[in-house]
């Protein structure tokens, strides 16, 4: 059974075709496409929005690359929340049009679910067996926008055990990278610098929030800021707009000579990983889960993967990095299981910007 998945919840336009809920036949993300070239020039920026421009070519490419005709699809799954209402509506409306046109069932999917299902997918080219869903599972979703511990009792049966009360883990990586004058995106930058550093040099706070599975990373970010300031460095002057995104700003290079960036990055990374691993371990034991699943951009962090695997007694699944970021394949996978269970959305499916996982 082949499902088309469409994802437009934030700033990426993505579509994918997945077979049997596990095999990715095609996956296209808008940022990989040179839209300008495709349109043979500058497209009318002022009149339309990014998703509106990208959605048709992205979906078309996903279907073409799958080697299937649209009529061979069994259904169309689409993210209907959480996310930007204006972005979500583009995907939802396009999915509706396509589903109606080809007389296919429409399935609305929660964006957070997609991060869970990324672990149970594999590209068509790979012959290696993929782990099949077992329940109960515990999912730790750590991205720029979310940090959540979710108990997965079955397909579509979730309980959010805890989440961040302020900054998400991925956001903390990004902002601390900025404070240290490192490049964007912050996750990989901190990881590579931290490998040369000693995590014992700085004792940074860990917000345990005992008795809950909630997280807090805002205080850690501010603690790093104060260390930076103690070295006489003003991290705010580094924020030179686009220049700071593309690498260490010139002014910051001399300043960083004084600051033990590697040690600070290592200490920070350890503080984040410590809390994520300990809380996940506690929840895994309390709920006696069969497997632990990582999802979201921070799941690509090597230290998190290693520590999590070593600390937990049950199997830990980590998706390939390409599936850690937003794409259409997991949406299609969720759609597959929904359809198997006889579920489908009605034609009046509407976007829910603040959709909760339930």
């Amino acid at each position: 059974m082949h499902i088309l998945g469409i994802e437009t919840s934030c700033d990426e336009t993505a579509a994918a075709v997945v077979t049997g809920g596990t095999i990715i036949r095609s996956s296209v993300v808008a940022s990989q496409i040179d839209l300008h070239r495709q349109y043979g020039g500058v497209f009318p920026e002022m009149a339309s929005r990014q998703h509106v421009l990208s959605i048709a070519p992205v979906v078309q490419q996903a279907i073409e690359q799958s080697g299937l005709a649209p009529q061979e699809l069994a259904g169309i799954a689409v993210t209907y929340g959480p996310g930007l209402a204006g972005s979500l509506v583009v995907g939802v409306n396009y999915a509706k049009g396509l589903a109606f046109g080809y007389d296919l069932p429409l399935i609305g999917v929660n964006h957070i679910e997609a991060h869970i299902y990324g672990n149970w997918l594999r590209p068509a080219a790979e012959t290696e067996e993929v782990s099949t869903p077992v329940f109960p599972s515990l999912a730790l979703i750590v991205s720029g926008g979310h940090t959540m511990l979710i108990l997965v009792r079955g397909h579509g049966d979730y309980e959010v055990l805890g989440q961040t009360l302020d900054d998400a883990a991925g956001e903390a990586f990004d902002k601390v990278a900025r404070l240290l004058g490192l490049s964007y995106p912050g996750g990989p930058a901190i990881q590579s610098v931290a490998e040369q550093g000693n995590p014992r040099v700085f004792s940074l706070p860990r917000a345990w929030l005992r008795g809950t599975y909630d997280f807090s990373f805002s205080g850690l970010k501010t603690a790093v800021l104060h260390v930076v300031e103690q070295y006489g460095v003003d991290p705010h002057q580094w924020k030179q707009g686009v220049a700071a995104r593309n690498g260490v700003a010139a002014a910051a290079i001399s300043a960083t000579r004084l600051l033990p960036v590697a040690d600070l990055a290592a200490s920070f990374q350890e503080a984040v990983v410590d809390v994520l691993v300990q809380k996940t371990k506690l929840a895994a034991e309390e709920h006696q889960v069969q497997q632990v699943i990582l999802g979201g951009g921070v799941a690509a962090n090597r230290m998190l993967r290693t520590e999590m695997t070593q600390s937990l007694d049950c199997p830990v699944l980590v998706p390939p990095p390409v599936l850690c970021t937003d794409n259409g394949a997991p949406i299609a996978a969720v759609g597959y299981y929904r359809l198997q269970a006889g579920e489908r959305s009605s034609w009046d499916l509407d976007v829910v910007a603040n959709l909760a996982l339930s």
Partner: protein
Amino acid sequence: MSPVMTGPTIDFFSHSVAQTRRFGFRLGQFAQPGDVFCLEGPLGSGKTLLTQGIGQGLDIHTAITSPTFTLINEYRGGRIPLYHIDLYRLHSDQEIWNLGLLDYLESDGLSVVEWADQAKRVMPERRLWITLRHLSATKRGILMQAKGPRYIALLTSFRRDAFGG
């Protein structure tokens, strides 16, 4: 330290996380549909913290988290909707326009925009502009500037409530 209050401006200090949250709470209580609060200040200066207080002042009881990556978080459980917007990752007016973020401003709820200084030109002319700055590890400077009669009235109410003046 008494606050400096001149016309449509209030400049004061917060000595703690709890105090910043309390200021936010009072501000939230005075918010009306269509209001726009623009927040400016470096990393770790308390923008999200202040917004958490504002949310509590609106009777929103769910966790208010940073919208840096999600770009906007909507909260509908309170007295009026709260649209918590963050321009940190956006670097051009075009990008902000394309994502439809401006549609939320001056709508049926309160819009709080973090990193509003990234896009000063596309922010509404009439607004409450709040600048946060680091003074020490725990102390923050909070400067509030009102533009337009609605925000001057709001600031007057806030001043009376917070400082009794």
